[in-house]
């Protein structure tokens, strides 16, 4: 059973990666300059008070013990408790994760909806002025910093036109309409930037296809330019697109922090930044660990997607 053996090997690699990652995360975070007790007590604390607080939070115990405690806790879903608030890390992460997942979850499919037609068009029309224009526009979008575009859209749609609120998050469980109206601008901002970014890959992918023998054969057998490209090119282009999308999702999970700042959304990125700032290392560790999990998971899903897109790989695996 080569499939099973391959799966088992992947699982071993996965577990090993997670373990190594957890140790690396733990050690790096311990090595950060700045101590949570000192930052908390702030300007004016005596060394005795700092020591007392460290003791209260168990920070005076050996590293190795604290590492295994943390690791053991995570195995049954306990990421520890924040030093500062005394609340479980999980209960702090969950509402923040929801915000980030909505933003990422909405903006990635929508940016594909923008990117694929844009890339297809600019690949096909690449020798005409219209294709060049679309291509140039995608460069502009790509060069536009997310926070700048966010401020721009806020000024136009929230301040001048007053169509959408520009900041704050309302949970979908509280009010669907409020939630939706507050999602528009942040998602639109990401879609414009991400769409332009992905369009570049779509364009390059289709241009490759245009030079392939199978496309020429398809054309020769009577497929029109456009239909041939969509019917025979999409799948081939998709393999490289999926890789890029996977990478984009991973980086957006924490990279959405810029969007969170501009639109004042309480997402995962801002939790991480705040926790680093206050040296609430248990929270930092928890969030980083979660992100590592997410990235590994996305990689796994991307691998599955290859199998789905490319039948040759399925046959190879069997």
């Amino acid at each position, binding site marked *: 059973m080569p499939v099973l053996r391959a799966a088992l090997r992947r699982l071993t690699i996965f577990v090993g990666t997670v373990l190594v990652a957890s140790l690396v995360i733990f050690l790096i975070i311990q090595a950060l300059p700045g*101590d949570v007790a000192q930052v908390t*007590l702030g300007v004016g604390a005596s060394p005795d008070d700092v020591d007392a607080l460290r003791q209260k939070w168990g920070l005076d115990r050996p590293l190795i013990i604290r590492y295994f405690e943390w690791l053991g806790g995570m195995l049954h879903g306990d990421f520890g408790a924040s030093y500062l608030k005394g609340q479980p890390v999980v209960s702090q992460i969950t509402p923040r994760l929801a915000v980030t997942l909505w933003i990422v979850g909405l903006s990635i499919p929508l940016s594909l909806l923008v990117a694929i037609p*844009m890339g297809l068009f600019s690949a096909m029309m690449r020798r005409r002025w219209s294709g060049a224009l*679309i291509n140039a526009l995608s460069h502009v979008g790509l060069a536009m910093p997310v926070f700048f575009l966010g401020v721009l859209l806020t000024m136009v749609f929230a301040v001048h036109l007053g169509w959408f609120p520009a*900041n704050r998050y309302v949970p979908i469980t509280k009010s669907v*309409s409020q939630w939706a109206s507050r999602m528009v601008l942040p998602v639109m901002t990401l879609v414009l930037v991400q769409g332009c970014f992905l369009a570049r890959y779509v364009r390059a992918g289709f241009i490759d296809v245009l030079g392939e023998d199978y496309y020429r054969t398809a054309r020769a057998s009577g497929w029109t330019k456009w239909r041939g490209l969509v019917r025979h090119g999409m799948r081939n282009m998709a393999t490289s697109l999926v890789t890029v999308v996977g990478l984009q999702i991973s980086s957006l999970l924490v990279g959405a922090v810029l969007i969170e700042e501009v639109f004042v959304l309480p997402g995962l990125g801002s939790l991480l930044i705040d926790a680093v700032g*206050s040296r609430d290392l248990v929270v930092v560790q928890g969030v980083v660990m979660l992100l590592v999990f997410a990235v590994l998971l996305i990689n796994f899903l991307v691998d599955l997607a290859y199998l789905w897109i490319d039948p040759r790989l399925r046959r190879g695996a069997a």
Partner: protein
Amino acid sequence: MKSSRIGVVAALIVGMALIISGCTTPPADAKTLTVGITVEPTTLDLTTDSTAAIPQILLYNVYETLVKMDSQGRIKPLLADSYDVSPDWLTYTFHLDTKAKFASGAPVNADAVVASINTMREAPNQTLKSQMAVVADVQARDQATVAVTLKEPSNFWLYSMTDTVGIIFDPALTDLATAPMGSGPYAFESWVSGDSITLTKNESYWGTPGRFDEVVFRFIADPNAMVSAMLSGDLDIAGEMTSPDSLELFSDASKYTVIEGTTNGEIVLGFNNSRETLKDLAVRQAICHAIDRQALVDAVWAGKGQLIGSMAVPTDPYYEDLSATYPYDPAKAKELLEEAGVTNLSLDLRIPTLPYTPGAATFIASQLADVGITVKVEELDFGRWIDEVYSNGDYDMTIVAHVEARDIVNFANPDYYWRYDNPEFQKQLASAIAASPDQFVPEMKKAATILAEDAAADWLFVFPNLIVTREGINGVGENMTSLSFDVTTISSKD
């Protein structure tokens, strides 16, 4: 073919608009006050954490003190309707307002006051503990009278009792970190991490009740987001404008009021006075002469912010303008350095990342370069700054705002990160604090003058209190004399 891209965007907007069809944002409830502030606290336990954002939200609004500081820096009665001071200035007797009660319904009695003062005397937050260090004994004389005896006379102690250290906690309070309970006109309601803290009206408030059913403090760290939230009507008050350049966006007086007051925050260019080069008075004087502070305020903070010249702010009773002690005079600076025989001076300027620091550091580095001092600017995140600069004193110069009231006392502590050890100043400050009340102000002025003349630091400017309110909001204090963002006096016309 630009139209196809616009078409896609337009389709997206229409699609989104359809999802939310028919639901424009409802008009803000007239009884809710929404205030934007920049820093979210990590905990609400102010006995442990010294973050200014905690008293900013809770002091006077949720927690009350025996005496209160008004916006002009005067002491007013609050939970104590009067107090007596013994002739030897050692014993303060507070007569509690018998009407006073906590939001929970329990009375604010002498036991609660004694317990709170004792909590503060043992607080892990060193600032609070040191402010209470002068207290020898606290006793309940009867249910409405508390006597506090000091070890030595202190003109500072009563002032400090108007601030965080004077808070009287509800004895029923068990969770300081997430569920504060006090006697103020508003009670703590909820905290949505990353978003806001909501206070509700204390329906059974013992004094003049709050004018709003709900007060929401929203956390908006990004200056642009604060501006757009105010412009789009999401805020009633932008409580801290950290982008002074954008104040002109609010120049329409029919829609907004811009408040420019002062705070307790001295923005200090701190010197590590234990460094060989900086031990030399002439070098410190030269640095002060080399910096054009007015031009710095104009360049970095849109000209908002008064020059002060020593560790005192305009709302301090002992304040006087000492900003002309070492006026901008680069030629004089060069001369001083030459006389001191200092050449090729190179200094590290290690700053925490804060809205005002990078601009100020660049400005200072360039002005000091003009007189031949090389400045290496390094930006540290606040945690690292606390560790390396503040705790370990690993720096030559740094810039940070000192926001606590009467923080001139820090210059009397040789272990403080400025490493400033001047027996003359220490003696003068101690005698000013212990002086008879009528000698307090002149003696404090002498202390502040010693610091200024000794160029113990360079005081760049006092952090301005920049607030924007929408039309119809009244009663916002002009100056921030305590750490509180006091909403108890605020009302709305509609």
